[in-house]
């Protein structure tokens, strides 16, 4: 009996979804922390962006990120399809008591799709959006701050951004603790702590990200 | 029908050497030849599952038949308390001889000494093997196996896994059998019910079964048949047996010539949850192990309606401790059951129906703390709470005896072979080891002893010493059996009367409980025989069996079983009437001491009653054959638990 290819099994695929998910979770945390610089000053915000993009390692990181995202997405989609196939007929009555399955976990796939659409849109808007320039201490760099301020004047865009971030937060609230469980880390003494940590993490990332459009739209006066 | 000579094939000589000597005298099948034999195992509980596993390990081809959707559901799973073994791990004076002695005495001297000694001998191997296959028995902090005490013994020799010992042992036997299914050494047939035994030249060569999913009638041929289909307590309708437990497989063998041993020996378990209404479909047992810490009592005053907590100790009668100071609450089951019945008959029963006694944990909780009590009995307390809506930590359990186990069964010799050559019978389905009363934690022991450590030796002897010409499912005998079974099913479906199968079953149960239950009289038994016969006639005219034969049809399944219970019930009454003594679970009111204890008659009834079925002029008749019992080691004496 030889099996070898881990990803032939559903558990194997799930490991990779969990690992890539945790990687992406770390990425969104870093991204969110960088965004918070908008509260400091335009200069800090732009200098941080410049430091990232001017580093030659950025290409490697971007390729890596895209690959991780792709693996996460592709395997999750494959698993979801397999899982739907495993339960071809659903129940007429959906449980509402203590045996119910939460909406968050039931809609992970939908959140995932929404987040993916958002990422594409987000990249088009910002990464590949209008290229303003600004100079700090003789160094020319992209004025991302200006673009952000412009974009977040549109209430529709802000609303869409918030919806997507809610989805991200929900996705993380299940995803982080679920990934830990998938990797086989579970101890009754720490289980609830991990669960809480996952929720805190998602709240932290979600609120952190939301602070930016809300700050710009409601507070920032130019 | 040929006359039958009962040869128990019991070895002679010193009892401790008998099994060893017998094993040496048995013929062997050489390893290469084993694969040429096919053995049919009917029933996959502890006895059948362990037999299928160990026979397959030896290299025989095994066909295993299971009535449920999986072998893991067999009713062995519901045994709660534990399994006895003479390990003497507790250093409290246990030995093989003592387990043998306790079992013979507990059975009120109505079992074969040779069989019981062998059972005690292999008990230790059972524990070794079960631990080795991963059964998670309870352990002490040092990592060694833990034991507890059980009724009818003064040593702690019971191995247990919380209140789920039967489950853990069954799953162990099941896993061993499933390993052999994977090895293709066992072919498993689930949702099959045996409806006939097929004889070719007088030898059991196969079975006819109904595929319960499709309704198809199937034939299966082999070189020997091993029956491990459990007991027949459901003849009482209400019992602690699972709903599918039935006598049909045994009964069909009986009608094909296998003698039925001691049919009237029924065990009434003292600690069951009482009946609450007419809709009641079964009774639930509360493990005997509860009597280790629970105290049984009733109010001293008749008709005392106060809640138990308001009855002071001075007004409680802890009657088992009072009457049996040395065994107290741990007297054997038959004794505890009868005493509960006496209290209720005196009008001192408790609860809304007045048909119950208390089993109280107040003192144990005070002594050990709630945590320790929960650790020991948590799942039983939870089970009680779910069924009754009452919390046993707060209020005493209400318990009452219920039919639990049948010591009687198909007669077998020392090789576990019935009077039909090739038909071997294991576990509760045979009559062998428990005499007139089974001690707690001994059923699991016997089932596994038969399956793991007896049948693998004795069946080889049968196969090696019997000419077995090739027979397959096209043989005339199989076709005849199939036709007979099909005809019987269509007859049942064709009656289309006005009463359901359950109505007849309930009525039979009431007759059995009233006249063939905890205490019996000559007149009552006579009446029962007549009434059961009348009920049976009505059944065949007035029953309504819904549905058809060609799909899953629970009503038809039940109808076949109840039809056989209606015949068995009559034989049980006849056997009880024939046995003019009281012994173990068989209590005849005419034969009791002034203190209401069972009074045996060893001069006239120290035998196994083995009944031969005959059909004479359209009427069923039974002829009694007697296998005399000799007691060379345990002296015949009156049991005393005082």
């Amino acid at each position, binding site marked *: 009996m030889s099996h070898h290819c881990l990803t032939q099994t559903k558990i194997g695929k799930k490991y990779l979804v969990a690992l890539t998910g945790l990687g992406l979770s770390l990425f969104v945390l870093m991204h969110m922390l960088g965004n918070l610089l908008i509260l400091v000053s335009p200069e800090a915000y732009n200098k941080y962006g410049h430091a990232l993009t001017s580093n030659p390692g950025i290409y490697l990181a971007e390729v890596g990120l895209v690959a991780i995202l792709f693996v996460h997405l592709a395997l999750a989609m494959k698993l979801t399809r397999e899982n739907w196939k495993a339960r071809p007929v659903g129940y007429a009555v959906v449980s509402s008591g203590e045996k119910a399955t939460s909406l968050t976990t039931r809609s992970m796939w939908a959140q995932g799709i929404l987040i993916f659409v958002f990422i594409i849109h987000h990249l088009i808007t910002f990464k590949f959006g209008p290229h303003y320039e600004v100079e700090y201490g003789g160094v020319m760099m992209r004025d991302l701050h200006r673009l952000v301020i412009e974009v977040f004047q549109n209430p529709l865009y802000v609303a869409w951004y918030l919806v997507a971030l809610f989805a991200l937060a929900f996705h993380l609230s299940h995803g982080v603790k*679920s990934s830990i469980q998938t990797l086989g880390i579970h101890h009754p003494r720490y289980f609830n702590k991990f669960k809480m940590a996952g929720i805190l993490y998602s709240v932290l990332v979600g609120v952190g990200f939301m602070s930016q459009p809300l700050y710009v739209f409601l507070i920032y006066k130019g | 029908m040929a006359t039958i000579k009962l040869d128990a094939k019991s070895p002679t000589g010193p009892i401790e050497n008998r099994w060893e000597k017998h094993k040496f005298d048995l013929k062997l099948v050489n390893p290469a030849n084993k694969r040429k034999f096919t053995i049919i195992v009917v029933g996959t509980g502890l006895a059948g599952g362990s037999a299928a596993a160990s026979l397959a390990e030896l290299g025989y081809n095994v066909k295993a038949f299971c009535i449920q959707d999986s072998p893991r559901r067999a009713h062995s799973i519901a045994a709660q308390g534990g399994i006895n073994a003479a390990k003497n791990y507790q250093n409290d004076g246990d030995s093989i001889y003592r387990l043998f002695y306790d079992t013979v005495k507990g059975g009120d001297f109505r079992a074969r000494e040779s069989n019981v000694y062998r059972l005690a001998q292999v008990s230790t191997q059972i524990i070794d093997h079960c631990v080795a296959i991963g059964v998670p028995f309870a352990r002490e902090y040092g990592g060694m196996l833990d034991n507890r005490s059980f009724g009818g013994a003064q040593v702690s020799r019971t191995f247990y896994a919380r209140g789920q010992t039967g489950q853990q042992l069954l799953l162990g036997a099941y896993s061993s059998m499933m390993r052999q299914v994977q090895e293709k050494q066992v072919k498993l047939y689930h949702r099959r019910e045996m409806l006939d035994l097929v004889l070719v030249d007088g030898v059991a060569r196969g079975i006819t079964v109904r595929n319960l999913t499709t309704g198809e009638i199937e034939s299966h041929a082999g070189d020997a048949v091993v029956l491990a289909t459990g007991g027949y307590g459901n003849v009482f309708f209400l019992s602690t047996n699972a709903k599918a437990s039935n006598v049909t497989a045994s009964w069909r063998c009986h009608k094909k010539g296998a003698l039925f041993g001691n049919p009237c020996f029924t065990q009434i378990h003292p600690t069951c949850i009482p009946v609450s209404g007419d809709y009641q479909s079964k009774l639930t047992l509360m493990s005997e192990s509860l009597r280790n810490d629970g105290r049984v009592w009733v109010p001293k005053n008749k008709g005392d309606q106060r809640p138990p907590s308001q009855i002071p100790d001075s007004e409680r009668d802890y009657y088992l401790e009072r009457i049996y100071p040395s065994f107290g609450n741990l007297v054997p089951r038959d004794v505890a059951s009868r005493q509960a019945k006496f209290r209720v008959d005196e009008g001192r029963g408790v609860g809304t129906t007045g048909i119950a006694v208390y089993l109280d944990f107040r003192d144990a909780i005070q002594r050990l703390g709630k945590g320790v009590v929960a650790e020991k009995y948590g799942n039983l307390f939870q089970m009680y709470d779910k069924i009754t809506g009452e919390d046993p930590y707060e209020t005493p359990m209400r318990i009452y005896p219920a039919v639990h186990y049948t010591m009687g069964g198909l007669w077998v010799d020392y090789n576990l072979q019935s009077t039909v050559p090739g038909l071997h019978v294991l576990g509760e389905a045979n009559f062998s080891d428990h005499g007139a009363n089974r001690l707690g934690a001994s059923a699991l022991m016997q089932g596994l002893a038969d399956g793991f450590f007896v049948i693998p030796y004795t069946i080889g002897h049968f196969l090696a010493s019997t000419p077995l010409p090739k027979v397959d499912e096209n043989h005339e005998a199989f076709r005849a059996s199939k036709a007979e079974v099909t005809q019987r099913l269509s007859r049942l479906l064709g009656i289309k009367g006005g009463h359901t199968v359950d109505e007849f079953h309930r009525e039979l149960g009431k007759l059995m409980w009233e006249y063939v239950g905890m205490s019996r009289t000559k007149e009552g038994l006579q009446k029962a025989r007549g009434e059961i016969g009348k009920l049976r006639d009505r059944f065949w005219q007035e029953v309504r069996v819904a549905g058809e034969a060609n799909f899953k049809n629970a009503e038809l399944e039940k109808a076949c079983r109840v039809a056989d219970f209606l015949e068995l019930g009559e034989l049980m009454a006849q056997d009880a009437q024939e046995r003019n003594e009281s012994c173990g679970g068989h209590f005849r009111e005419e034969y009791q001491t002034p203190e209401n204890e069972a009074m045996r008659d060893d001069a006239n009834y120290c035998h196994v009653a083995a009944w031969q079925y005959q059909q004479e002029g359209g009427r069923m008749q039974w002829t009694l054959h007697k296998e005399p019992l000799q007691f060379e080691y345990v002296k015949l004496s009156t049991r005393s638990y005082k």
Partner: protein
Amino acid sequence: MGGASKSKLNLKLKLWRQKNAKDKGYFMDYDVKGISTEASFLEMLDVVNEELVKKGEEPVEFDHDCREGICGMCSLVINGNPHGPDGATTTCQLHMRRFKDGDSVTVEPFRAGAFPVVRDLVVDRSALDRVIQAGGFVSTATGTAQDANCLPVPKDKADRAFLAAACIGCGACVAACKNASASLFVGAKVAHLALLPQGEAEREKRALAMVHQMDAEGFGGCTNTGACAAACPKEISLEHIAILNREFLKASLLER
């Protein structure tokens, strides 16, 4: 106390009827009257069936056997809940005192691709047997064992193994899971034997074989919703799935 508060219920039952695996199946409504609150859910169905038989109709098929919560034969999804609304309960232990007069009760079979419907509320769960058959055992032949106390097992490990081994194989975990995953069932068996020294020799082989069989039977993957553990009548915890995951990971990474 002591059943003093006995009363009767009338219910509107909606039961799934299906002739066989190929039939489409449908819901049928039944008005049930005068059910005692002390009766069990299955006893209520018995009453319904007796009435149907007397009316000349076909009774509803459902699986059951021990009726004391240990054999794992009973199933049913009651108002969306496998084994009914209560935790740590099998359908046979569910009592009618849990319902109110006039309640609507919908009863469906366990739903999973790996559990085809046999008839009405009866499903075929033999896929679980085949998963056990793939590796849920210790390969020790009868007669070879050493003395049971030769190998001490720490009490806490023995207790944990017992908790895992308490699984009754009813399949409620599969029925509850939106993916019809059998991970809790398989995790319980893998954990039971991984915790005991007796299971050590086949530890890796077992995890691999059982996981592959689980997939082959068409069970879905685990997405850690926790529905299985909530529905488990024996309260087998999610920890067992984590154990399965790490046993399988270790085994597949080290496999030669």
